[in-house]
């Protein structure tokens, strides 16, 4: 029985369903960004908490742009941002180069193998990220598994220093983010009509031509989604450069972490975060657009 009171009750319930997660996200996701912005305009002081208040005792605003001008003038930060962008880009391309043929192979396997292969892609994602990075420390060490095997095979007579290099960071990034590349690629490749490729080849296209003219354009939504899902988190990565990289391989995530925990300069760390966020706004909006389009395509 739907009575007027009952319907009002239901509408109220609908509002509550929206309001609870909405308010939670406003308070714990959106509001913190306003606070980061505010603190990035403060001066560091030795106090608890270690920054100057936004309003002084007379109620005047005490904002300063010192942190930003410091970031812009100090070469170290510019170099670190550029290096982070570069390394995240290279890691994204490496993931794509390895992930595309894998996703293609999985999408073309017969159904029972396909499910198992997909499961094996997802499984590492469920196992602790930290421990997976740690596993590479044991492999890449000077006395680690890879060097031991190479020396045992007499390929080398001295261990190669893999650890604490950019190479080790790339290995860690590709290893950790490969599933994020393979899954969206698989989703588009699996939906693709294989007859189109065969038709192109029947009409005389060489395999490489059929790939670039048919497969690649059709796979593009997956390529874009996969690349963004790897690039954005890789930009702010902290654990991988800390454990596998050397003291010179400073990435911005690690600089932010150290600025905060080691130097206890909260305002500067906030400014570092705001600039990182500005760099990432474009790819994040791009990703949301592509996912919204994808959701509409399904409906």
């Amino acid at each position, binding site marked *: 029985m*739907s009575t007027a009171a009952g319907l009002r009750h239901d509408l109220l319930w609908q509002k509550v369903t929206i309001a*609870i997660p909405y308010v939670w996200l406003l308070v*714990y996701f959106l509001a913190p960004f306003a606070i980061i912005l505010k603190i990035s305009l403060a001066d560091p002081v030795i106090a608890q908490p270690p920054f100057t208040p936004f309003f002084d005792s007379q109620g005047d605003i005490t904002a300063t742009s010192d942190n930003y001008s410091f970031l812009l003038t100090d070469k170290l930060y510019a170099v670190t941002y550029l290096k982070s962008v570069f390394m995240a880009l290279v890691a994204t391309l490496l993931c794509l180069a390895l992930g595309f043929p894998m996703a293609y192979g999985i999408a073309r396997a017969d159904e029972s193998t396909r499910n198992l292969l997909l499961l094996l892609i997802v499984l590492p994602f469920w196992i602790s990220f930290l421990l997976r990075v740690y596993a590479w420390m044991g492999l890449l060490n000077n006395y680690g598994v890879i060097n031991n095997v190479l020396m045992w095979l007499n390929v080398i007579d001295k261990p190669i220093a893999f650890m604490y290099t950019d190479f080790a960071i790339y290995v860690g990034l590709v290893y950790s983010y*490969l599933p994020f590349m393979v899954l969206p690629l698989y989703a588009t490749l699996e939906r693709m009509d294989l007859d189109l490729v065969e038709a192109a080849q029947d009409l005389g296209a060489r395999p490489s031509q059929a790939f670039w003219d048919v497969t690649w354009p059709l796979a593009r939504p997956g390529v874009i989604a996969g690349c963004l899902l790897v690039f954005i988190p890789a930009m*702010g990565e902290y654990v991988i450069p*800390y454990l596998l990289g050397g003291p010179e391989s400073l990435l911005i995530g690690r600089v932010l972490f150290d600025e905060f925990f080691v130097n206890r300069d909260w305002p500067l760390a906030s400014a570092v975060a705001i600039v990182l966020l500005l760099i990432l706004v474009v790819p994040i909006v791009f990703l*949301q657009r592509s996912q919204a389009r994808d959701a509409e395509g399904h409906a």
Partner: protein
Amino acid sequence: MKPRSRFILSVLAFGYAFLYLPLASVIVYSFNDSRLATVWGGFSTRWYGELLDNDQVLDSAFLSLRIALTVATLATIFGTMAGMALSRFSRFRGRTLFSGMITSPMVMPEVITGLSLLLLFVSMQQLVGWPAQRGFGTITIAHTTFAMAYVAIIIQSRLSAMDESLEEAAMDLGGRPLRVVFDITLPLIAPAMIAGWLLAFTLSLDDLVISSFVSGPGASTLPMLIFSKVKLGVTPDINALATLIILFVSSGVLIAWWVSRRSQRQSA
């Protein structure tokens, strides 16, 4: 694809070896008797024994489990609400902002999320005196915020793949919207809710960076403890701990896969 298939097969083999060899080597070395993690000193299970005697490890594992259970439950409730709002209530004010806030936490670099939440907690403490101390509560709030986004996406995609006709039929027959949700919609999305709960649980158990920011003195989760040990290099007791986690998670995932495959075959 025939002329390509040898290339594809070798990339697949390389890719899977790349994903699984590091895990295999951790498992093998966890049974190494030698304290030097890289020299093989014979088979032994002594590191497992030492692990179980280590109170620090047990305490932090217990804290992590308590947080993960709370987070998974809260994130499933809020995430299901958010997913339903996004896919069933098509128009409401601020919808664009809402869907943006749902997808952003998933890709936001953890250092930014962690820093921003800590600064929020510190400011709130100055203003209203809450949270008085950081630990279980603040970590739970932080984890719930990003985990509910994952749950919402799972629920949303399940609901948009699902036919609305069952719900419409129930309403046509006079069912009130709220009854329809509890009698029709929720039972239909229950598998997605379970998947979301498990994902939220895993994400919470795994998080290091955000916990490091929002935790206070004295409260250290299992990943925080592992990180503080691992910073100094490879150690045999961490190998043993990693092996336990790898075996536990893999068997859980494989059993879930096997059960769902069997139930699919039965319904087919």
